[in-house]
């Protein structure tokens, strides 16, 4: 990645990001496509007005023209803000694997944010799911990470190259220093209490 290496809120001292993944770019394109149609809406309405012979003085000097100019401007301002909102919603969803843990950041709207982390040595299972024609052709899918807890904690959807990400997670987990018995790690040696 060019420029400054990214960090994330809550990063520990000495913690190092191994890799970071966001959702597949097609998710953002789907959101932006609707804005493309909404941007064209005033032009479509104007074309409709011309073909239907509706008389309306759109000269900016005329009061009606002022109302339309200010209304269209406010409309595009709202569209611009909504586009920025959707981009933030996309950009702040991330799956981050560090040398210590996996961090799953999910942004749902502006004031709804969930950050969950899972120590690498507590990973029990990593499953990849690719369903549908678009995910198959564009190579994105869902990663399910099962921890030692009963409830499945991590589900990250629309992640690009999920098989590669799975392999990277497993490789990073194997390299992490063991604390409890985890994936690919031998059980700790028995400790004599002495006496």
């Amino acid at each position: 990645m060019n420029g400054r290496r990214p960090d994330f809120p809550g990063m520990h001292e000495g913690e190092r990001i191994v890799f970071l993944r966001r959702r597949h770019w097609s998710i953002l394109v789907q959101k932006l496509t609707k804005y493309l149609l909404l941007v064209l809406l005033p032009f479509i309405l104007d074309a409709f007005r011309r073909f239907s012979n509706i008389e309306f003085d759109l000269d900016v000097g005329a009061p009606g023209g002022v109302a339309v100019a200010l209304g269209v401007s406010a409309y595009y301002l709202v569209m611009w803000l909504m586009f920025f909102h959707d981009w933030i919603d996309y950009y702040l969803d991330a799956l981050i694997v560090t040398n210590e843990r996996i961090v799953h950041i999910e942004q749902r709207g502006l004031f709804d944010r969930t950050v969950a982390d899972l120590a690498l040595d507590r990973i029990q299972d990593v499953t990849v799911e690719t369903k549908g024609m678009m995910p198959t052709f564009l190579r994105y899918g869902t990663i399910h990470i099962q921890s030692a807890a009963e409830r499945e904690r991590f589900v990250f959807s629309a992640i690009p190259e999920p098989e590669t990400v799975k392999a990277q997670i497993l490789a990073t987990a194997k390299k992490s220093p063991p604390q409890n018995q985890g994936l690919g790690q031998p059980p700790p040696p028995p400790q004599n209490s002495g006496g």
Partner: protein
Amino acid sequence: MEIPTLVLLLLYLAIVLVIGVFSFFHLYHAYRFGMHTRVAYAISAAYIIGAVVIVGVTLLSVTSVDWTAPIRIELPSFGVEVTP
């Protein structure tokens, strides 16, 4: 009913103010919770520039308007005629 055209400008500026407040929330959120990459800064800067351009172009295009001129608003009658 006739109102001064200036009312439309005040209404527009009120909308701009509300959008400005929400924009601040979004930019603050992007800075506080986002990963500080060049892409994030570039998109945020593009958003600010785009918003300023939209408002600036709009205000420049209406500088020659006579804001004291009345604008007539006629409410639709829906075919109802009131006879004395």
